[in-house]
């Protein structure tokens, strides 16, 4: 019978090679860290240039109704973050909370439904052929086209906004999940099975797990769409939220507040996307640096 332990002695000679490999690994990691720092610095520089150009243009134009300065916008942001606009309304931070709550509820429901639907379509041919045309019909429609009927059906409360978000998120997530599961190599499944995994264990720990990074990329795409939909819905039919604030301030040509609202949207969008990117790094180690 084979003696497992003596194999190590056979490979003792490999120690020198391993030391080289180890050096190679730490070099590789250092290079990736450097590339990452560089990328961040270049990105930061370009944002600074953009803000400087805006400030110069605003000062040159000299008309705060056409373009407020960066300083006026930042001032408006901090002032109205805690003070209400218009006078009887809640402050900006409350609008942020309202919009975020709508986004998160609609997005989470949409993602759960989309992933479940995509997985069901992957696992079952009848479900796939039944759902596929419906998804293909809904997918190219702009969710905003549904705002008027949604108002008629559900009024201007929270429900029509959640439904609007779910409408936008589900097709993207369904297609992303179905495609991601289809991309998992057949041999990876076989590999797990020859290692002793049951079918169920393989589906959860190998196929869905392997599809996870692509599913998270689908979440990033649908998050951007959801954010667009919700702000538009708030501008058209709402009495709260960031979209409502922008629309109100715009009616009174109060551009520094409009821009403060736009910047708020940008910052929240960046934060939500950064969270999803963080999730992607957790799910896919090859993207880490």
């Amino acid at each position, binding site marked *: 019978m084979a003696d497992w332990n003596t194999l190590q002695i056979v490979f003792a000679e490999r120690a020198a090679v*391993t030391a080289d*490999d180890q050096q190679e690994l730490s070099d590789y990691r250092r290079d990736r860290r450097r590339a990452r720092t560089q990328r961040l610095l270049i990105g930061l520089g370009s944002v600074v240039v953009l803000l400087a150009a805006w400030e110069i243009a605003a000062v040159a134009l000299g008309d705060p109704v056409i373009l407020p300065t960066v300083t006026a916008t930042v001032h408006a942001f901090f002032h109205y973050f805690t003070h209400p606009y218009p006078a009887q309304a809640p402050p900006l931070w409350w609008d942020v909370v309202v919009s975020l709550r709508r986004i998160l509820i609609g997005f989470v429901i949409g993602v759960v439904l989309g992933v479940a639907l995509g997985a069901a379509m992957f696992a079952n041919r009848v479900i796939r052929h039944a759902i596929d045309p419906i998804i293909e019909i809904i997918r190219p429609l702009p969710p905003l086209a549904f705002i008027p009927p949604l108002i008629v059906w559900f009024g201007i409360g929270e429900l029509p906004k959640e439904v609007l978000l779910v409408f936008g998120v589900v097709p993207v997530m369904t297609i992303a999940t179905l495609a991601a599961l289809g991309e998992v190599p057949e041999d990876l499944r076989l590999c797990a099975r020859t290692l002793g995994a049951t079918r169920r264990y393989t589906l959860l720990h190998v196929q869905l797990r392997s599809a996870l990074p692509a599913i998270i990329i689908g979440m990033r795409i649908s998050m951007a769409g959801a954010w667009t939909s919700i702000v538009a819905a708030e501008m058209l039919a709402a009495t709260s939220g960031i979209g409502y604030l922008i629309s109100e301030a715009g009616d009174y040509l109060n551009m520094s507040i409009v821009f403060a609202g736009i910047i708020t949207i940008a910052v929240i969008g960046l934060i939500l996307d950064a969270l999803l990117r963080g999730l992607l790094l957790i799910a896919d*180690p090859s993207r880490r640096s």
Partner: protein
Amino acid sequence: MTAEPAGRPTQGQEPAHVSIRGVGKTFRRGGRRTVALAGASLDVGAGELVCLLGPSGCGKSTLLRIVAGALATDEGEVTVNGQRVDGPSPDRGMLFQSPLLFPWLTTKKNVLFGPLAQRAAGLHERDDPVLDADADEILATVGLGGFGDAFPHELSGGMRHRAAFARALATRPSLLLMDEPFGALDAITRSRMHEFLIKVREQYQTTIIFVTHDIEEAVLLGDRVAVMGGRPPGIRHVTDVPLAAPRSTLDVDTESFTAVKRKIRASLEE
């Protein structure tokens, strides 16, 4: 025979005897029938390495997948240690052309995948420290001792293949099925993997069925070479490799080695 250390898996330690009896497989796609394999018979002895050699479409991968239990036969049957094959089993490990490591797991967790999946399926009840120690030992064995925490994308091509090897060995298979495992490697790394495989075999006497389309690789590694091909595809000849074992990659230029190669090349042309 030495006593097994406590808590160590003992299953699959004895190399398997494989018996392939009149195996045939026909694929049906869009009303068209393609015979992928017909009447293949082969016996592989315990601890033997048999190479399945032939061009693309000769049925060698189909046969390997049937032995793995990934494909069902239309005719004939395959038994491993007298047991009929009817699905994948951790007793029959498989290695592919791509290492197919799980990219979201570290090298060590890749090695632990099999033991943990088997524990989840209720096949054993060894606890984490035992499995952990075993994984460390296997990684040291394949020369990846310091790389347990590295992710697959951080490893070189050869290291990935050794990691895949470690993962397959962790379930202590009595039979290893290798499907052109080094086909995508550069010539030098490939040569190193050959030396690696030869050394693993010196110590760990598992039975191996090795699929390749490279005559030199077949002669270097195989105890016997089964030449496949023809219409319908099947096993044409089985040739003994009459060279002293274990061989080294330096032997490939010797006259006797070349003579065996020539003989097999001729049987491929028939």
